[in-house]
């Protein structure tokens, strides 16, 4: 049986990765599972300077999901490269650095720093965090700005470039096309949906940031639909599917919709070993359906 997949020249031993922002810098989970088992680790979104993130409270659990407004708190690229990357590199897995900037220049500079560091296998361009200030969301929701940032970053790196798309747009296919035309090798979708919750007793928002990003099983049907639409429009573009995957069955759904790989996010919080269970369950599914190669079912939904 073959679980190995290829994305933009990267070979992953299996299609299961971790979603940025839910797996720290990877090392935090070494006590819970063998990191060598993972297809890839996508680290917490990095910026050229350390970032404090948003004030608390930052978390609110909703029906079948959770809202977060962390605000891209991170240690900065320099500290990541010096303190975390050498330790991560000891594991036999693909290391993908998610990163962001507050301006196009910062995106370009970040891409350069991560490329020069050596040891990062690919970049995931984060243009889709819903917890940044209002103007920032243009990177992921305005096609002209998206084309500009992807194009500039493309010129700044030789690494495979994955663009993580925002679902908070009218036409996901248009945004996917723009990203690919500007130089994206692959696409990750979806990031969290912008959401809000209110404490009716105090009449205050549950999050200090007022709005946050909704993740978890609640968003899975939206993610599957968007992934399927993008796969149908851009069948040759490698897609990494994410949004509420809790089990192997959820992962298979994404793969049938057109995902070549999947990322586990909120499920890591619920169960630190969720990724391993998804990998095991995918194997069981292939055995049960007598499928030799995981690649044979990518986009295999019958409709």
């Amino acid at each position, binding site marked *: 049986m073959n679980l190995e997949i290829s994305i933009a020249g990267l070979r992953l031993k299996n299609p299961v990765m971790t979603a940025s922002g*839910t*797996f*720290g810098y990877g090392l*935090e*989970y070494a006590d*819970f599972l063998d990191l060598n088992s993972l297809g890839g680790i996508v680290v*917490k979104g990095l910026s050229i300077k350390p970032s*404090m*993130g948003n*004030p*608390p*409270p*930052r*978390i*609110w*659990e909703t*029906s*079948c*999901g*959770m809202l*977060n407004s*962390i605000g891209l*708190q991170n240690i900065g690229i320099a500290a990541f490269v010096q303190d975390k990357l050498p330790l991560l590199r000891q594991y036999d897995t693909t290391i993908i650095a998610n990163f962001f900037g507050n301006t196009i220049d910062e995106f370009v500079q970040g891409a350069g720093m991560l490329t020069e560091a050596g040891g990062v296998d690919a970049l995931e361009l984060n243009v889709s965090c819903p917890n940044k200030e209002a103007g920032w969301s243009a990177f992921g929701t305005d096609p002209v700005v998206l084309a500009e940032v992807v194009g500039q970053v493309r010129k700044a790196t030789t690494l495979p470039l994955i663009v993580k798309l925002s679902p908070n747009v009218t036409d996901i296919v248009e945004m996917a096309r723009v990203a690919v035309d500007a130089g994206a090798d692959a696409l990750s979708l979806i990031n969290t949906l912008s959401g809000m919750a209110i404490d009716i007793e105090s009449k205050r928002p549950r999050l200090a940031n007022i709005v946050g990003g909704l993740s*978890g*099983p609640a968003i899975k049907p939206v993610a599957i639909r968007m992934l399927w639409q993008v796969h149908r429009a851009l069948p040759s573009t490698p897609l990494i599917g994410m949004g509420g995957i*809790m089990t192997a069955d959820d992962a298979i759904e994404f793969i049938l919709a057109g995902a070549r790989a999947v990322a586990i996010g*909120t499920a*890591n*919080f*619920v*169960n*630190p070993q969720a990724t391993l269970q998804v990998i095991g369950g995918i194997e069981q599914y292939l055995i049960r359906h007598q499928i030799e190669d995981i690649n044979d079912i990518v986009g295999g939904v019958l409709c």
Partner: protein
Amino acid sequence: MLVLSPMSETPWPHAGQFYMIGQGVGTLREPLLKRPFSCMDYRDGLLYFMIKIRGRLTGILSNCTPGAVLELIGPLGSGFPAVEPGERLVIVAGGIGIASVAMLLRDYPEATLFYGVRSANDLFVDQLPSVARSYITSDDGSVGLMGNVLEHLRQYIASTAGDMAIKVYACGPHAMTEQLCRMFAVKAGNSSETSGVTVEAFVSVEERMACGIATCLGCTVSTVDGYRLVCKDGPVFNVNDIITAAHES
């Protein structure tokens, strides 16, 4: 009281440490996320948790029948620092905060306890280890002394002879934590001078968290060193390090 028997080998907790507790594998997980609970005791291979029914998960936990399987991660967090010889320990609990300090009562039987509740119905004393001196207060006077527990604490400290340094270890609602910070925090140095008595205070802080293992970054608390995580850097903090909302305004 929730009593759990670990199904695999696990280190025993220190006073102030906590566990993430959620529904077991194979169940329909709703709510999804585990919640943090302070361990209040361990003995004979069992872990003891005091659960106050507040929301969906605590409701489910309270309906667990013997033999139910739950998922636990822990012990987590830093716990309370050890009390040095020559120091007098004063333990302060507000409401369900008693769960976070309960192990201190066992570890330091010579300590003094201040335990404040809203009314007699909120009081939990059945399985608490007894300590040398206990002061129970209630807002409505239905049990113990009437009034705010911190007012009684203030009077106690003011009347204490200054021969021994005092450590105050506390856990309670946000408002109590903030008031303790105002009472005992000093701008520089490690101790505050209250009528000649040296007092160093630590509080166990509660904040919403998704993971408990420093990856969701949800449980931040404002400190003099910037945001720190309750799950990893706490839950116990020196009051000197915490920046309360009142200080910011």
